[in-house]
């Protein structure tokens, strides 16, 4: 066992930290307040190669391992989870899905510009009535011979407006249930696609979330990913890796809030001394530190398993559930340590608390993770 990071991993961690502090911190509160998508910030992040950091260099990616990705996600998420969610969707859902299951022509046409960060991707699975229960897809992809015809509505789509490339999950053979589901590469500007209004969210407000409506959208047969009926497996396999991204995002939100709470506790005085010297505060910070260490280890373990090409589905579910729940706890405590200052926007922790909540919900709720974990106990 070796807990030491490589020099490259440390370099990536530092690069992400520098980027977040230099490029994201200054206007993160303003963007969150006004729900402004971080377009220029994402452009710079893409230029540094973070959006395709794990994709094989053969397809113009950075060729970095999943451990590096976790380290980078944590650093970006400490400052701005609305930016790191773009990074997560691009890296671990869209790019990974295309690289692993797409054919060479699809990779050439769609993966390369995504890996170079010239284009952004989105993953369209959730529906108004199919969130946690991904098997009940209502969006249909009717086989018309030369093409598929897509109809239906997708909900809560991250990057819906900013993405150029959609990966869409839809039902081709309803009678076959989840075995009739397919996955498609759909260009966002295809005729028949319309977007709902920007969702006015509690947190991650500057992330670009919309519903997406498909009305007789023609998708070429060559844009189907994998064999006919492979869509559900594709979605589940892709989400296995996606959970590592969101787990490390939750970890970053937690450690960002912890670092701020620790700093504040050493500056703020009450009863004649820094509040860190009060045991009630010091013990809170001690508990937070232990939980963050656990959370980080779970993320890194899942990432390490993935890098070793070992099964990581259960490990990533454990990481996602634990990190998200811990992020909620720690950000709440960070607000408490800040007292009244924690409740105002200037000190960032209230925003981190709002962001933490989403990590318990999207890409599989904490409860769904428990389904995955508990089922694995019986295997």
């Amino acid at each position: 066992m070796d807990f030491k990071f490589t020099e490259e991993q440390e370099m990536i961690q530092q690069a992400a930290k520098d980027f977040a502090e230099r490029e994201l911190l200054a206007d993160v509160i303003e963007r969150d307040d006004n729900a402004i998508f971080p377009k220029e910030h994402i452009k710079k992040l893409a230029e540094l190669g973070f959006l395709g950091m794990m994709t094989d260099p053969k397809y113009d990616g950075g060729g970095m391992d999943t451990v590096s990705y976790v380290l980078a996600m944590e650093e970006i998420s400490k400052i701005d989870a609305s930016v790191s969610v773009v990074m997560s969707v691009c890296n671990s859902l869209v790019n990974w899905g295309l690289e692993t299951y797409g054919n060479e022509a699809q990779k050439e046409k769609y993966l390369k510009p995504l890996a170079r960060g010239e284009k952004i991707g989105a993953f369209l699975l959730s529906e108004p009535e199919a969130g946690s229960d991904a098997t009940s897809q209502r969006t249909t992809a009717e086989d018309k011979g030369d093409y598929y015809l897509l109809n239906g509505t997708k909900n809560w789509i991250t990057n819906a407006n900013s993405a150029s490339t959609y990966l869409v999950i839809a039902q081709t053979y309803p009678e076959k249930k989840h075995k009739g589901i397919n996955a498609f590469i759909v260009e966002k500007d295809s005729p028949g696609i319309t977007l709902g209004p920007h969702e006015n969210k509690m947190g991650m407000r500057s992330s670009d979330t919309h519903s997406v409506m498909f009305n007789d959208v023609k998708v070429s047969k060559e844009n189907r990913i994998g064999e006919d009926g492979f869509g559900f497996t594709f979605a589940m396999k892709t989400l296995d890796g996606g959970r590592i991204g969101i787990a490390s995002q939750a970890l970053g939100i937690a450690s960002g809030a912890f670092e701020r709470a620790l700093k504040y506790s050493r500056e703020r005085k009450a009863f004649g001394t820094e509040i860190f010297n009060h045991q009630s505060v010091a013990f809170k910070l001690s508990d937070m530190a232990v939980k963050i260490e656990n959370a980080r280890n779970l993320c890194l373990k899942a990432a390490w398993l993935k890098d070793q090409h070992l099964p990581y589905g259960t490990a990533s579910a454990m990481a996602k559930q634990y990190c998200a729940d811990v992020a909620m706890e720690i950000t709440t405590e960070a607000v408490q340590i800040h007292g009244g200052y924690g409740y105002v926007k200037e000190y960032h922790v209230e925003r981190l608390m709002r962001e933490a909540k989403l990590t318990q919900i999207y890409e599989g709720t904490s409860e769904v993770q428990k389904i995955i974990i508990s089922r694995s106990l019986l295997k």
Partner: protein
Amino acid sequence: MKILVCINNVPDTTTKIKFVNNTAFDSNGVQWIINPWDELALTRAIEIKEAQPSEIENITVINVGLAEAEATIRKALAIGADNGIRINYDAKDSFAVAYQLAEYIKKENYDIILCGIESSDYNGANVGGMLSEILEFPSVSSISHLDIKEGKLILKREIDGGQETLSTQLPFVGIVQKGITKEPKIPSMRGIMTARTKQLLVIEAASCESLTDFIEFELPKPKAACKKIDPENVRELVQLLHNEAKVI
């Protein structure tokens, strides 16, 4: 043109400085970085190369130090230097660094040699000046602007009430101040990935007599608590400055 950027390996600027028995710097747990001024010099060199690739043939980074400096050299390669050199020598003072650099540079043909104006470890601000003297190369200090136009170097530096524009013959030693570029460059994923394929040459040091010995290190005394005095009460302020601080 060939550019050589001299980089020092220094403790991160937020490091809590500790000593072993007050005779040596305690490097345990210290994170090492490229000296911030050197990093700015390197960033500017890369910016010029990116903007005018035909003008710049190569950017080399060089360090005088031991093996632990190699992570810092590799970061410089990730940022965009083409190759790196480490002169294997544990220098105790600026002269030793300048001497070792000069011995190497004499044998090569660099056109532009860049150094940060000072180093954030000992802040001696000596190496650039000493290097140009030993090499008998022209040098310009406190450069806050460096560019190449039509094959000629344009240098600027801040002076009282304005800015001075200079040109110089090559080879020259440029001693770089803040302002030379906006911010140090963050390495890209591609840069980090290709750093491993770039050459990092370790060369043996020239024989050099050590002119310095460390006798004792001492931390500055902790700052005394701040006393606040009512602006109306000037008499008390004067008394304190006279009797307690003994500055007037």
